[in-house]
């Protein structure tokens, strides 16, 4: 009688041990499966992996060949929407379109300036820029441009004068994230 009882106890113990081991294995698996979408969203929604572009170089990115044509800066007088000690920076790109599906390839196009501590300056509209045949990155998306054409992209920024000459331009496209471009050249002072 007691022999059969010992056997049953041993069986229970064995199954309890197996269950504990399975729990240790299954719990992380279930967590990974349920969190997969969130992790993918996090990974693909950020600029995490930088692709450095040397000064004057062209680089293929998001179905287009990007070149930073000019990066200029000038001090701005304070007043209105311009705070004290501000510098205006204008970035001009020549972009040769290879794949004309810009609404897909250039979705979430963001050109920004970055400093050594990772701070980001987004484009501004407070600078009075002269009329030109350039367009902003996002407004070029629906310009109906054909493959092979070259787009002139211009973005303006408002940054502090101190350290303005150390800033660098970055280009980020939603489809390419977590990869993004960072151009080596620094702003050049013009008057």
């Amino acid at each position, binding site marked *: 009688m007691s022999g059969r009882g010992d056997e049953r106890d041993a069986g229970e113990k064995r199954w309890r041990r197996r269950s504990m081991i399975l729990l240790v294995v299954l719990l992380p698996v279930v967590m990974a499966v349920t969190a997969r979408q969130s992790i993918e969203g996090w990974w693909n929604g950020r600029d995490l992996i930088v692709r450095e572009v040397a000064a004057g170089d062209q680089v293929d990115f998001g179905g287009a060949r990007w070149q930073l044509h000019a990066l200029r800066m000038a001090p701005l007088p304070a*007043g209105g*929407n311009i*705070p*004290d000690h*501000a510098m205006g920076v204008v970035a001009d790109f020549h972009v040769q379109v290879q794949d004309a599906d810009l609404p897909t390839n250039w979705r979430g196009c963001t050109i920004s300036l970055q400093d050594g501590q990772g*701070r*980001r*300056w987004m484009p501004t509209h*407070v600078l009075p820029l002269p009329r030109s045949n350039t367009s902003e990155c996002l407004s070029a998306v629906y310009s109906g441009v054909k493959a092979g054409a070259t787009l002139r992209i211009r973005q303006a920024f408002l940054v*502090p004068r101190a350290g303005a000459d150390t800033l660098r331009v970055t280009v980020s496209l939603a489809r390419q994230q977590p990869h993004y471009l960072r151009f080596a050249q620094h702003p050049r002072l013009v008057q």
Partner: protein
Amino acid sequence: MKRRLATLVLLLAAAAVLFAMQRSTPRYDELTGPLLVSGRMGQPVRTRLFDANVERVEFARQLVYERFDRQTVRTTSGLWAIVTVELSARSRSVNVGWARWVGPGGFQYRLSDRLTLAPGQSPPAVEPGLPRRARYFFEIRPDQVGGAALWLSEQMAPRLDSEARIKLDALPRAADGALDVMDTFDMNAAIKEQP
């Protein structure tokens, strides 16, 4: 009999505990709601994206501004509350475009939409390293003045992101302790003296 009674008591206790748990479970929007950063006037309040320091609050019976060479006057049956805030961006450019005046009775006033063509009414864009002043205009009931707070955020309803809640505790008072209310606030003149 005793055993049955004990089971019944146990069941009732379990039901009570479950009911309490059900009633006290926070809703999803509460769990993922704004992370509050509280402060008071004259102190910098640090949120994830920006620092805000409420410099002063002013009250006026009417606002005047010029647009397209025409002077416009905005009167009110209540009060115009004008909150001047110094803002500085932290890690990236930020538009601190959502401001609410929350009165003592819980009334929430959004920024007035009667000033869409007035100068300086676009959401204040703040760049890292370039602190600036912004003015927020609210049209409020006179009984919502004392014990009010200013709520500031980049988005309308921040989710798992910080929101500044600044107590407006240094209101302009006349010598006799009454609230100091200007007859007219000139928005164009205020813009000129701004940054």
